[in-house]
């Protein structure tokens, strides 16, 4: 079925024809650069094999896709997809859950800091 994807250009290699058989081709190497650094951080060689990176990327994309589908299933009742749906999905995995909540809280703090920073700048600009 044709998904009115947000980024058809990146995903669609075959033109989105009227038929529902078209499957969007996945762009390879979306996470290649970032993954190389992450793998090095976890103990791999600074220059890992491209096949290894491709495999890890496959794993990541598969995981994210699966997560999103499940979250959508949960959120379809409410109608809207929220971050709480994702948190609900990883509720059993404590390390992940804690890391997620930590990241979200840090995100909030950063937002607050940026907001305050901007306000300060405005004040400075105004006072000047």
């Amino acid at each position, binding site marked *: *079925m044709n*998904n009115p994807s947000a980024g058809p250009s990146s*995903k669609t290699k075959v033109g989105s024809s009227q038929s529902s058989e078209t*499957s*969007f*081709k*996945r762009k*390879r190497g979306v996470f290649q650069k970032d993954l190389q650094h992450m793998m090095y951080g976890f103990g791999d060689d600074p220059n890992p094999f491209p096949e290894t990176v*491709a*495999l890890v990327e*496959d*794993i990541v994309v*598969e995981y994210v*896709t*699966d997560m*999103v*589908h499940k979250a*959508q*299933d949960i959120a*379809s009742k409410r109608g809207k997809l929220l971050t709480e749906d994702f948190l609900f999905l990883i509720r059993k995995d404590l390390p992940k859950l804690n890391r997620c909540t930590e990241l979200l809280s840090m995100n909030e703090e950063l937002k607050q800091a940026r907001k305050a920073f901007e306000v300060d700048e405005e004040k400075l600009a105004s006072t000047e």
Partner: protein
Amino acid sequence: MEQQTPTPPPSTPQPPELPQQPPPSPSPPTPTTTASTASSSAALPPPITATTSTSSLPSTTTSPPLLSLPSPSQNPQPPTSTPTPNTQTRPAAAAAFNRAWQQPTPISHFALPPPPLPLPPHHHSSSSSASSTASASNSSSSSSLLVPPPPRGGMAIGVPAHHPGTPPPPPTSFSSLTPPSFVQPFGGLGRNVTDSGPTSSSSQVRPTVGGMQGIGMMGTLGSSSAMRPPGVPVRPVQSSPRPQSSPSIQSPATQNFQGHGMLRVSSVGSPGSPSPGSSQSPQPQNQPWLNSGSQVKPPLPPSRPQVSPQSMQQRSHISQQHHHAMTTTSQQQQASSSQQSQQPSTSGAGTQEHYGQQLPQSRIQQSLPNQQQIARNLSLGTQRPSHSTIPSSPVQPGLPNRAPSAEPEESCNRILSKRSIQELVSNVDASEKLDPEVEDILVDIAEDFVDSITTFGCSLAKHRKSATLEAKDILLHLERNWNTTLPGFSGDEIKTYKKPFTSDIHRERLAVIKKSVLAGETLNSRSSAGQAGGHPKGHLAKGPTSIVGSPPDKRT
């Protein structure tokens, strides 16, 4: 039950009392005791013993029925005898009951040696109602009891001396596992009036050294489950030094030798024919078996790792030790299966069947490493087979001698080699070591897994109207049926999301419910002062239902 323990010894003296009660119908009690007319009494005993056993169980008051059981025609006698043997009937009943218990056991022992003949009685006893078969077997065993005495006491099979003490405990021990019972299957079977298959009762019967024949018998009897060993013991039977019983043994051995399937077939077929007439024949055969069995006992080297053909045979004899019996039989089974170069599927099925109870979990665990193995195989391609074949020969030295000779031939038919299994195990735990039979089973499991996956993948490809088996067929099957995802093979397709299908009516109803709930909440908030709180809720409860009920009405 409790009567049995004290009564076993007195059971023998009691039989003479029994004849007093039913003099005209001595068939049931006498055959057991006198063992004279085994064959003729076979017909009578079944109904009588059944009744007697059942009647004796309840209580002493059953004495009159006990007396009357022997035969309806002999009614006049029982009534006359009832008043006097009130005390006698009680012990008689107990004795009869005990006898019913004892007879099956001794018979089972004796019945073992002559595989074809004794099978039917045992088979009957194990499968169908015990009473009838027990009686039949009792008659045969009783006769045999009297004849062969305990000189063969060494023989595990049918050691009369042990019977008295053993019968009581066995019924309780039935719950034990089957594997160890291989050695003494019949002992257990005899008792298994109610239970099915050999159980630990054999442990009490213990003396069953004649596991050889017993094992062969086991195979036929236990055909229902875990009766692999039949094939194995067959060899040793033939090669064992049994000059006396060789002719008699050969026939059953050959029958067993033909394989598991044959054993089962023979077991199925045998029960029917020999039951009536086999009562007498087993005796002469039993003795030679016992003799040979006792002779074979000494040379048993209980060394497990060395599964040479000779040791295998010896092991089958040795199977006295339950744990040994289990392992040896399984090993022999493996060895026999590999040596006989039987189809891996059958052996795999057998081993799985045998270990099915024990390894359901390990099987699931193995499926994952198997999949990893398969993935590796797919990715590495030809490198894998060369790797597996080369190390296979050097790895074998520690294994039994027969294994290397048989393994190389088998390895071409196998997908995995034992070497790869060991590598996998070392990946999990470096210090872990697996038993050879475990490795064999794992190889079988892997093979079956690959087989099933390939078959389903092919059917999916066919459904796709394609003549090529592609990765996506396998992936789909694994994902849907095994809940397993294999990263790295999914290609470039993106998994599209399917919104959960909700019918229109369902959505409408949900919307209505939402509205009513909201309305109710507002009402509650307004009339939060006490009494009114109850009513709005009631209104709410009625409201949604009425509203919900309307749409269907509209539709109709």
